[in-house]
């Protein structure tokens, strides 16, 4: 075969030349590549390390994880849970509408939320991440992660949010968290707090209860993240990260199982109850009904739900056990009696005649028993709650001494508990009336105060403290936070400055109230030996009974509209012979203390003493049927909810 002339010398030269050009080109290319590699790896690497000196480095805060709140046994009351959310960055998304429509197929946001998100996206700078959806399920979260290529600009993120596993039970004590508001920072309790964490938008701070009062312990310290930003403030990369310090955990004195029982037992009543250890002052349960779900507030409560809470005449948002100030009624009679005994104006066995009323000038002060009690000494007067006896001794001892005794027993004093809106109540003096009512103190005021009516106001917490002090004879202070280190707490509180013999008379009276044949709370006695209960009923009027009404015959409570009925109160301690626990119960507009409040207090105390559902043998024989039905019907939480730590699924 003949070869073409082209493929001879000349052609070979062309070929060699072109081959050389190619080889040279390749070599040049690789030289450029080498130079570029060297530039990036040596020079830019040095630059990169020098950046620290320039102000392109920003410090960003990393929120610490909030301290947990436990009950006395270590059951979690406030926990942090993983919160899966998606954020969208407008400039990365391109067509925001398209991307949101695609995202919508996975997470299905309600229309109005979507509109809000769109507004938010339009309002923010294009590079700022905007949260599109919060609290996603793991499934939705992973679906978004998998579909990331179809969702430009959308990033799934993990954060922490607060959750209250025992929701309604601790709504008033633990409280809840919410995003920090301008009000918090200017006038609220965070006004003097210059923690930079508070500048983070929507940073969660305690709003009520322990969450708010112990905010500083729970919050922890911010970590920092050094990031490089460009001139527009866009984050280019993270350089390093210093982890913050998590918030401190807090352990409360409450027993969550008892608290649950208490809340459930109070049920739908507008009521509150406090259970307290008479020696240490530990609050084992402190409940207020009706309650609400604090988790709703964390998630952002709907307007309708919030309005429903506000407009409920049972005031679910109020923590009545510390916030409610009620006339103590007959539960105050121990104070009057102690004041009189200590002052020596009456002897324990001295009898006073009760004709059914006491006359003071032209005014008659009535006893609750129209026909009178006849001759009564101290113990019987307490047992039957004779008003005339206490009018009489109150008149003898005078208001100043009564008030001094009330304060000694913990009334009229604001006890410092880390919950919201603790009230001080009111134990009136002559000076107080002159200052506040612009009127002189009248003897009639003293008589009214002597039976816990008139100006006297106390909270269920104060009543529990009073009962605990009478029961133990010591100056116990209520305590809600348990020191985590020392199990054996501070030495027992000092004894009260009251003659122990006098206290013993009062205890005897309280024992008779519940256990003797004519005691006002006999219906609520405990028959289990060694666990007998002592107490005092109270019924406080929220209205005046006019002479005309009295002449007609006093209208029965049940016939009145709810908000005008009497408050029912009961204070008690048990076991009577070796007091351990004190309990106060107030049922707003519940009627008589013996019927509405005493049975609740008995159930709660027995529940606490037995550490669970009490046996029917503790109750009087005739009541066992009713009690059995009630025990069965109470919608208590499953006991597994109170297992320690994070064992819940």
């Amino acid at each position: 075969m003949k070869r073409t002339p082209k493929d001879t010398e000349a052609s070979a030269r062309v070929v060699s030349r072109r081959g050389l050009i190619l080889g040279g080109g390749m070599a040049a290319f690789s030289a450029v590549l080498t130079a570029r590699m060297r530039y990036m790896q040596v020079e830019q690497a040095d630059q990169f390390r020098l950046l620290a000196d320039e102000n392109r480095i920003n410090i960003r805060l990393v929120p610490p994880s909030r301290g947990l709140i436990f009950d006395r046994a270590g059951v979690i009351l406030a926990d942090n849970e993983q919160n899966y959310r998606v954020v969208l960055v407008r400039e990365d998304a391109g067509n925001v509408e398209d991307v949101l429509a695609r995202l919508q197929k996975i997470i299905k946001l309600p229309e109005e939320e979507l509109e809000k998100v769109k507004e938010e996206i339009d309002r923010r700078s294009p590079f700022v991440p905007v949260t599109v959806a919060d609290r996603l399920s793991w499934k939705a979260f992973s679906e978004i992660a998998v579909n990331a290529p179809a969702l430009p600009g959308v990033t799934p993120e993990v954060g922490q949010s607060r959750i209250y596993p025992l929701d309604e039970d601790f709504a008033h004590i633990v409280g809840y968290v919410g995003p920090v508001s301008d009000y918090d920072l200017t006038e609220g309790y965070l006004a003097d707090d210059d923690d930079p964490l508070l500048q983070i938008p929507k940073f969660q701070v305690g709003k009520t209860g322990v969450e708010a009062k112990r905010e500083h312990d729970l919050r922890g310290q911010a970590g920092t993240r050094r990031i490089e930003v460009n001139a527009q403030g866009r984050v280019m990369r993270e350089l390093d990260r210093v982890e913050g310090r998590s918030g401190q955990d807090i352990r409360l004195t409450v027993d969550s199982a008892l608290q649950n029982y208490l809340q459930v037992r109070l049920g739908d009543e507008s009521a509150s109850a406090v259970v307290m250890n008479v020696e240490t002052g530990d609050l084992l349960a402190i409940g207020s009904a009706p309650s609400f779900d604090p988790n709703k507030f964390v998630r952002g409560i709907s307007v309708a739900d919030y309005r429903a809470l506000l407009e409920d005449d049972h005031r679910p948002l109020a923590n009545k056990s510390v916030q409610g100030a009620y006339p103590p009624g007959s539960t105050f009679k121990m104070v009057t009696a102690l004041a009189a005994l200590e002052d020596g104006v009456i002897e324990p066995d001295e009898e006073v005649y009760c004709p059914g009323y006491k006359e003071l000038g032209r005014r008659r002060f009535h006893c609750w028993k129209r026909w009178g009690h006849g001759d009564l000494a101290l113990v019987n007067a307490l047992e039957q709650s004779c008003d005339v006896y206490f009018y009489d001794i109150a008149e003898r001892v005078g208001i100043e001494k009564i008030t001094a005794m009330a304060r000694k027993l913990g009334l009229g004093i604001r006890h410092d508990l880390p919950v919201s809106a603790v009230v001080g109540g009111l134990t009136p003096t002559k000076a107080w009336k002159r200052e506040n009512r612009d009127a002189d103190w009248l003897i009639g005021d003293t008589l009214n105060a002597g039976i816990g009516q008139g100006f006297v106001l106390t909270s269920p917490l104060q009543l529990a403290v009073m009962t605990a002090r009478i029961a133990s004879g010591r100056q116990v202070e209520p305590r809600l936070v348990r020191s985590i280190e020392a199990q054996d707490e501070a030495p027992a509180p000092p004894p009260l400055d009251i003659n122990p013999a006098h206290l013993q008379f009062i205890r005897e009276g309280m024992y008779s109230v519940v256990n003797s044949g004519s005691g006002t709370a006999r219906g609520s006695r405990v028959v289990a030996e060694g666990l007998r209960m002592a107490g005092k009923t109270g019924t406080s009027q929220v209205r005046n009974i006019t002479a005309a009404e009295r002449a007609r015959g006093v209208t029965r409570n049940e016939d009145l509209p709810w908000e005008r009925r009497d408050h029912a109160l009961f204070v008690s301690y048990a076991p009577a012979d070796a007091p351990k626990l004190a309990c106060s119960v107030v049922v707003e507009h519940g009627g008589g203390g013996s019927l509405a409040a005493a049975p609740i207090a008995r159930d709660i105390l027995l529940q606490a003493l037995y550490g669970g559902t009490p046996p029917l043998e503790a109750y009087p024989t005739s009541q066992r049927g009713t009690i059995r039905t009630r025990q069965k019907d109470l919608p208590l939480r499953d006991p597994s909810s109170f297992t320690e730590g994070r064992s819940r699924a």
Partner: protein
Amino acid sequence: MTEMVFGAAPVRDGEPILPRWWRTIDRWSLACVFLLFGVGMLLGLAASPPLAARNELNPFYYVQRQAFFGGLALTTMLLVSMMSPQVVRRLGVLGCVGALAALALLPFFGTDFGKGAVRWFSLGFASVQPSEFLKPGLIVVSGWLMAASQEINGPPGKSLSLGLVLVVVGLLAIQPDFGQACLVLFGWGVMYFVAGAPFTLLIGMAAMVVVGGTMAYKTSEHFARRIDGFLSPEIDPRTQLGYATDAIREGGFFGVGVGEGHVKWSLPDAHTDFIIAVAAEEYGLILVLFIILLYMTITVRSLMRLIRERDPFIRLAGTGLACSFGVQAIINMGVAVRLLPAKGMTLPFVSYGGSSLIAGGITLGMLLAFSRTRPQGEIGDILLKRRR
């Protein structure tokens, strides 16, 4: 025909195959190929554990597979490099026809592995990417056609080969796999250039590339985003390229240390397209320069040896193979350092992947077969004639 032998002609009939192979092979390139394979294994050790962790396999699963396919590829390469150019040509034609058929069947039987482009046949234990195997075959066939066109009364080889290449480019475009299409076009262009294309035509082609690129930029959002990403001075640190750039910067001269790299944990393609970033981060500039040196030694040495080749087929096909091999490596590394726009392309012999490894073995085997020492000059001409 009369035998005319001057001096000691290096043709010894009856010489055993192996010694002759060893005497004539380009031993430098051969050594470089083995070193590249070693580097691939070394980087596989670094890149395998994160990938295996994601797929819940034993940490060095991918190293074992890499070793298996690498062994297969090296064996293939050695076998092919022992063949004579004629046998290689036959192999190339067969491979080209087979791979072309496979490529055409892809739209019906292929899978996309969820990546949005149908490029693979799934065989259960492994997947095959026909376009990888097509490249060497296509270059050999094109080289043959072009060489034939230089013969008097030869077929219109250049046009025929252009037609063939355009068919292949079309098939690749519907996958879509524009990277491979470009590479195929480039390989053909190189051969055409060496075969003596007029410069005006080359300029015209360059113009067409510009026009085509502009069109693609205007019509394809995907393509436009890549170009924009390349042109913008700041890279988004959350893209693959952003991670790779960070990793390369992080590496410095000596690297952050074996196994200490971070990029392999966040880059999905750390074991394939961005293996150079892993190398740069963990072993630093040293290893990167070494890798560049290896590729360039193979490419440039082969080109220099081919310049002396008188047989147009060997020269054209060899040049095409050497250039496409070198250019693929350059593009891969160029993308990682942002000299070139983002384009998925493996680093031959280093990236993980069975098809890529074995096809690389075939390509280099053919190249080594073509670049073997042969009698050249007058003698070559004479021997060439005698062989025919």
